[in-house]
């Protein structure tokens, strides 16, 4: 957390580098404005990738990041042996199963092609969703970042095709169904809650998004203040309005997500 004093106004401003993935900055722009009034200047660093924001945070090049689900986060810090912690939950963006050809997941025929995201943070989630929809079976101990190899049961003999997340809506004409994560579905002009033929229930706790910081910054006042600003009612309203209910503010205690 960098400090700099703005002598002309005689007021202390604190600079915070916050990493996000993708380019949708609407929520953070909203929060930044609120923070600015309190002397916190949030600099958004945008990544087009799910790896670098975490490594950069661990290396101290970011002060905080907010782009991932807790499931992804848990595995990431374990694999990389990073000393990061979540300080707040943010939103739940339900993933859905979409189709141009079928109205119901049960209509999906044998041997059909299903497009699923190929990245670690989305694939396990997609598989769990498929299991929830009764299309495939997964082992008891399936880890939320699991991959295709772990599918134990595939009664309809579905062909699961891995593509980059942004490709899933584009593949719709070529497949029986695509598993599309929330943000992408919205950007592609789909309404998650309306157009999906199946979507995650609100209790999909592993996929609640979080704000993460280095363990040593766990109690940093500024960073926690930012978390608080996110969890304000005002922000929740903004999100609901701006995202048409497709992004669900989910402010639960960290203990609910295993922290």
């Amino acid at each position, binding site marked *: 957390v960098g400090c700099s004093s703005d002598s002309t106004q005689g007021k202390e401003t604190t600079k915070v580098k916050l990493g996000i993935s993708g380019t949708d900055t609407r929520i953070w722009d909203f929060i930044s404005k609120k923070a600015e009034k309190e002397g916190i200047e949030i600099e958004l660093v945008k990544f087009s990738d799910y790896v670098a924001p975490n490594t950069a945070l661990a290396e101290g090049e970011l002060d905080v990041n907010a782009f991932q689900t807790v499931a992804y986060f848990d595995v990431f810090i374990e694999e990389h042996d990073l000393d990061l912690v979540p300080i707040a939950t943010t939103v739940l963006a339900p993933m859905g199963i979409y189709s141009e050809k079928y109205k119901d997941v049960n209509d999906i025929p044998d041997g059909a092609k299903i497009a699923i995201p190929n990245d670690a943070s989305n694939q396990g989630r997609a598989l769990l969703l498929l299991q929830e929809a009764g299309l495939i079976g997964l082992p008891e101990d399936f880890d939320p970042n699991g991959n295709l*190899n772990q599918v134990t049961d595939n009664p309809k003999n579905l062909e699961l095709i891995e593509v980059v997340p942004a*490709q899933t809506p584009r593949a719709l004409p070529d497949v029986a169904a695509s598993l599309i994560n929330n943000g992408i579905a919205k950007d592609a002009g789909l309404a998650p809650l309306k157009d999906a033929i199946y979507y995650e229930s609100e209790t999909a706790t592993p996929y609640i998004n979080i704000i993460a910081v280095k363990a040593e910054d766990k109690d940093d006042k500024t960073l926690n203040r930012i978390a608080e600003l996110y969890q304000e009612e005002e922000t929740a309203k903004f999100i609901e309005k701006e995202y048409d209910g497709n992004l669900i503010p989910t402010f639960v205690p960290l203990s609910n997500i295993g922290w």
Partner: protein
Amino acid sequence: MLVNSEQIIEALIETIQMVAFSLLFSVLLGLPLGILLVVTRKGHLIENLAVFNVLNGVINIFRSVPFIILLVAMIPVTRFIVGTSIGTTAAIVPLVFYAGPYIARLVENSLLEVEPGVIEAAEAMGATPWQIITKFLLPEALSSLVLALTIATIGLVGASAMAGAVGGGGIGDLAITYGYQRFDTITMFITVAILVVIVQGLQSFGNFAAKKIRRR
């Protein structure tokens, strides 16, 4: 390690398929384009500035578009040609449109280096443009063309890694999705090692062939 040897072999086959077919088609696309870029330019064999400018521009457009966007932009074309926009076969189409114009540029550079005296000799014999191209220009530039194609093939191996975006699979995609995104260092190591072997093999073969042809 999150992947098994079967997956690796499958990925290897996918890579080979993608590279081989997209190389084939991109040469079929790029070689004529490169030749046309040379022979239609000012003062050359069949000077035609209109054709030259259009080709030059179109090639530039394809060369400008980031691969991932090309991937999307080509979807209708891909669907038209192979019936689907995802999977290994579908990946070949954008790869061809990526590598074709690239090969055209490399071919252009090689052919421009052919000694003008050789073309003169051909013209003096009354050779048709087609004969000049096939019997004079290409054979004289062959060694340089082989090296250029080697460079392009290795470029294709790299680009094929990105074809994972549309479910193309392949070794490179394995390296990215497992090695990079899932931190499976062993998979990453193995897949990168396989890539190194492939590239090393391609380059050695290219060097050898070029040297044979150049004979010095």
